[in-house]
């Protein structure tokens, strides 16, 4: 299917290109608006996932806090029962699976004579057995530790930053510390609950909205409290990790998390386009969930892909539809073209398909139909014209044969005479004539030229020739012959037709030439010495004009070897394309070159060829007649 050759395809393509352009613009706008909406939804989803996770972690934290909150009055009532205090810590650990250790640490000197007193229960890291000890001693000077000192100074509950406890637990943990107050509000100790960071990390690993997501908890100073990579806990902060990433936005995320802000940020995490949502937790920590960007905004991507596929398939469907519809609509054009081609090949009766629509196609069909009708009519006319032309032509050919047969062809070749003549009409029939007859030793000859050409001239020529045949044979003097022929031609000649004639009678014994010129071109005389000249003759008057015109004849004595060349003005007035005529000078020059011995037929043919050579194929505009009479 070449587009250049198929109109329907080309038109379809233009329509589809235009429509597809529109669709692309509309789709782009739709895509932009929808993507933005879907993007917002995706962000909100990520945010709610974070909220849910925060809610869950806060639940854990609250459970831990609740386990030790409000225990100050219990402790205060049993200050004198040390065993009971040990039991309290045991029960806290035993009753709360999330708590791996609990201590009631008293102010140094609270008990008289004892610097340290702190019942402590913990679960062994490896053994998972519960141990209860008194943990304060010279090596473990708990009053200076963060988990003790900070809540005491702040005078409020406090979650410690992650640390590795070597006082008994022997593992990474974070401790919730609550100050114990007496009735006057004085702080006399701290009660704690520990949570295992390893456990927290495991617990956190369950928070992953997508397969590739991971979550983390960050403490107040940026250190990791929980992270899927447990080696990072305690050892690294969010800033040390950010430094390893090429993306500096990770720093901004860290700052925002430390500032307790809630937000979301796209960044490159280990070479992957990621999206992090983060938010503060009630105890001052911050939680972050890192998702692949593609996961969060997969709906946007799916939507865009769907839109692109829709656009692509829509365009193809539109092209196919357009191509088919337009193909059907333009089918008549193809059919018209076939009909026209059939007509062009000569079948003018070719069927032109009907169309039902009253549109341009109908107009085209009507035009074709009209053209076909006109051509058929024209053909009928042409046939009749051609037939009639052929008839005229055939009649003219017959007329030509008749006219040519009027001119004698038995040219005398005698010891004393060589005579030859030829006629070349410009049209089928002409107005030139020649004649001759030999009676004894006398030869009578003439050349004539009727005014005009064609059929009118040929009819007049026929009359002239008949008149001469009859009158010339009577043996009258030449002027009398011409007078009678003239009278004969004048009779009934209302059209002013006339004929110029040069007629002569040569006595072959004596060489005496009697001649009469009726307005004809001067003939050429070539002497035995080869010298050529025009014969001065009285012009008299062309025959057929005025009755009783007194023609005069003249006499010339010829030597043997003298040649007479008679011709009509078709020779001297033969024209080249540049309107130059052959002329009398060229004729005389030609005559001067002739050998007196040459037979008349060769001389006549030579002159004819000379003239043809001169005109170089230009149309012959007048009849040409040449006669050579050689007295030997």
């Amino acid at each position, binding site marked *: 299917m070449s587009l250049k050759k198929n109109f329907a395809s080309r038109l379809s393509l233009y329509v589809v290109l235009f429509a597809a352009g529109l669709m692309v613009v509309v789709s782009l706008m739709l895509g932009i608006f929808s993507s933005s909406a879907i993007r917002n939804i995706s962000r909100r989803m990520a945010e709610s996932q974070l909220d849910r996770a925060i809610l869950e972690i806060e639940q854990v934290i609250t459970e831990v806090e609740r386990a030790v909150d409000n225990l100050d009055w219990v402790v205060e009532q049993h200050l004198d029962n040390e065993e009971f205090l040990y039991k309290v810590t045991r029960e806290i650990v035993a009753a709360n699976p999330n708590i791996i250790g609990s201590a009631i640490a008293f102010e140094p000197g609270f008990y008289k004579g004892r610097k340290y007193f702190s019942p402590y229960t913990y679960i062994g890291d490896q053994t998972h057995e519960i141990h209860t000890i008194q943990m304060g001693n010279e090596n473990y000077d708990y009053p200076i530790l963060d988990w003790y000192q900070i809540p005491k100074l702040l005078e409020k509950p406090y979650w410690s930053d992650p640390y590795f406890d070597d006082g008994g637990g022997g593992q990474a943990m974070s401790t919730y510390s609550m100050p114990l107050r007496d009735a006057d509000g004085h702080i006399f100790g701290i009660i704690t609950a520990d949570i295992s960071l390893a456990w927290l990390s495991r617990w956190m690993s369950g928070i992953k909205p997508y397969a590739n997501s991971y979550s983390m908890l960050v403490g107040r100073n940026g250190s990791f409290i929980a992270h899927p990579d447990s080696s990072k806990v305690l050892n690294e902060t969010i800033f040390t990790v950010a430094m390893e990433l090429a993306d500096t936005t990770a720093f901004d995320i860290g700052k925002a998390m430390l500032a307790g802000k809630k937000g979301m940020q796209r960044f490159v995490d280990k070479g992957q386009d990621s999206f992090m949502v983060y938010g503060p937790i009630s105890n001052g920590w911050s939680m972050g969930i890192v998702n692949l960007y593609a996961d969060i905004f997969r709906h946007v991507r799916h939507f865009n892909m769907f839109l692109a596929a829709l656009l692509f398939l829509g365009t193809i469907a539109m092209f196919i539809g357009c191509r088919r519809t337009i193909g059907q609509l333009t089918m008549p054009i193809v059919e018209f073209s076939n009909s026209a081609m059939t007509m062009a090949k000569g079948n003018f009766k070719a069927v032109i398909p009907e169309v039902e629509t009253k549109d341009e196609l109908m107009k085209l069909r009507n035009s074709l139909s009209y053209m076909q009708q006109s051509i058929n009519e024209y053909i009928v006319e042409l046939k009749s014209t051609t037939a009639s032309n052929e008839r005229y032509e055939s009649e003219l050919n017959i007329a030509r044969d008749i006219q040519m047969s009027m001119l004698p062809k038995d040219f005398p070749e005698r010891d004393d005479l060589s005579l030859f003549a030829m006629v070349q009409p410009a049209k089928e029939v002409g107005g030139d004539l020649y004649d001759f007859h030999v009676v004894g030793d006398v030869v009578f000859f003439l050349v004539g*030229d*009727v*005014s*005009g*050409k064609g059929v009118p001239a040929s009819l007049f020529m026929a009359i002239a020739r008949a008149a001469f045949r009859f009158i010339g044979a009577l043996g009258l003097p030449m002027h009398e012959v011409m007078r009678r022929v003239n009278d004969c031609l004048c009779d009934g000649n209302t*059209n*002013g*037709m*006339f004929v*110029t004639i040069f007629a002569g009678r040569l006595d072959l014994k004596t060489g005496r030439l009697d001649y009469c010129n*009726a*307005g*004809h*071109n*001067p003939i050429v005389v070539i002497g035995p010495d080869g010298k050529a000249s025009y014969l001065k003759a009285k*012009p*008299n*008057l*062309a025959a057929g*004009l*005025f009755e009783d015109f007194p023609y005069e004849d003249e006499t010339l004595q010829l030597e043997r070897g003298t040649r007479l060349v008679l011709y009509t*003005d078709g020779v001297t*007035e033969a024209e080249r394309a540049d309107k130059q005529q052959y002329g009398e000078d060229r004729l005389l020059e030609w005559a001067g070159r002739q050998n007196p011995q040459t037979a008349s037929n060769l001389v006549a043919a030579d002159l004819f060829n000379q003239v043809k050579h001169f005109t170089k194929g230009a149309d012959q*505009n*007048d009849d040409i007649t040449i006669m050579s009479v050689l007295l030997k």
Partner: protein
Amino acid sequence: MNVTITEEGAKALVKLEGRLDTTNADQFQKDIQPLMTGSHAEIDMDCSDMEYTSSQGLRMFLMLQKTVSARGAKLVLRNMKPHVKEVFDITGFSHIITIL
């Protein structure tokens, strides 16, 4: 052949220009029709720019001469170029048409 006819009272002044041959003889016949059917007492033709005449052209002049003579008027051809005059001389037309 270009034919220009100007009338000066009963006299018609005619200017002939160009060639008179078979191709335009019919047109020439139409051009001089006013002179054939008119009633001019004298027709004066200036032939100084006539280049050629065929035998058919001669016939036109003859017809004009006959018509003009019949109504007793006069036809004069003037200033003919020698090679054109020669045609009139050869055919003997100089005898029946006044050429000055």
